[in-house]
């Protein structure tokens, strides 16, 4: 009996991601959830600009490519015009937390009934490792060669906490994928974010703390350890909003 195989909601296209990039794991989790909920035929995904720009080639459901950062706005339009479809966006930190912060906050503030998968690896991957709004204090990047200095470059943005100040979001959770247990937890959160939409509950966002071995300048395994050592103290895992749990 097959107990683990590539999910049906992924195409046969080979991922272009670097060796050890956790985008591949997160793509697979989203696809597994689509398979388990049996919604591939009625799901519409919105791809970002960034490393995951080619996500439209990898997911077997219908996909749209948004202008940089505008995926939540596109998702809003699709969901409002076709409310019976399941609409998700898949965005990195450069897309969602930088150029797209306006669309992210506005969509969350309106409580749009969409699902957002936010991959936070604290760096701009596709363009070669520049500093992101989520880069850590002291983190060396192409544009912060002496480490991020808050005096001139500010402090990292915690997206889940920021959105949790809004009234409308239904569900905000931060997970990571740096070991087997955390991958399982990440899948539960992603599944809940899709189920919320199917049940009409409103805006759900899952932030996945992710690794970028290439631009962090580490081996893939070291990058997963770095998540525990450096990323999680800045970006604590946990549920920041779940209206189901509120009385």
């Amino acid at each position, binding site marked *: *009996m*097959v*107990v*683990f*195989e*590539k*999910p049906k909601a*992924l195409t046969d296209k*080979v*991922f272009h*991601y*670097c*060796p*050890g*990039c*956790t*985008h*591949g*794991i997160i793509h*697979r989790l989203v696809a597994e959830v689509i398979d388990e909920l049996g919604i591939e035929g009625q799901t519409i995904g919105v791809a970002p600009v960034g490393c995951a720009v080619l996500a439209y080639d990898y997911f077997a459901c219908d996909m749209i490519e948004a202008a940089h950062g505008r995926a939540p706005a596109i998702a809003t339009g699709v969901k409002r015009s076709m409310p019976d479809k399941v609409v998700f966006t898949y965005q990195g930190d450069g897309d969602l937390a930088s150029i797209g912060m306006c669309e992210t906050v506005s969509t969350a503030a309106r409580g749009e009934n969409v699902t957002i998968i936010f991959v936070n690896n604290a760096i701009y991957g596709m363009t070669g490792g520049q500093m992101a709004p989520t880069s850590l204090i002291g983190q060396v990047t192409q544009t912060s060669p002496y480490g991020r200095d808050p005096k001139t470059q500010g402090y990292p943005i915690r997206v889940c906490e920021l959105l949790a100040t809004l009234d409308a979001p239904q569900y905000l959770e931060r997970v990571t994928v740096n*070991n*087997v247990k955390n*991958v*399982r937890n990440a899948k539960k959160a992603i599944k809940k974010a899709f189920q919320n939409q199917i049940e009409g509950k409103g805006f759900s966002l899952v932030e996945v703390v992710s690794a970028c*071995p290439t631009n962090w300048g580490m*081996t*893939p*395994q070291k990058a*997963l350890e770095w998540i525990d050592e450096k990323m999680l103290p800045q970006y604590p895992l946990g549920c920041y909003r779940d209206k189901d749990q509120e009385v």
Partner: protein
Amino acid sequence: MAKLTFKEELCKGCGLCVNACPKGLLALAQGRLNQKGHTPVELTRPEECVGCASCAIMCPDCVITVER
């Protein structure tokens, strides 16, 4: 008995599965490359594999299929 199947041409040799295996049964191949030029992963002692799928869960490239 568990059986692992590797889509070797998809493997990028990142080694995340090697570290994920609780029994340390996986290793990157010695002295050979796949078509992409990466060192693919191999199962060193197949008879000890229990099919827990930890390797497949950590694989970013869906290389591994697990049967039990």
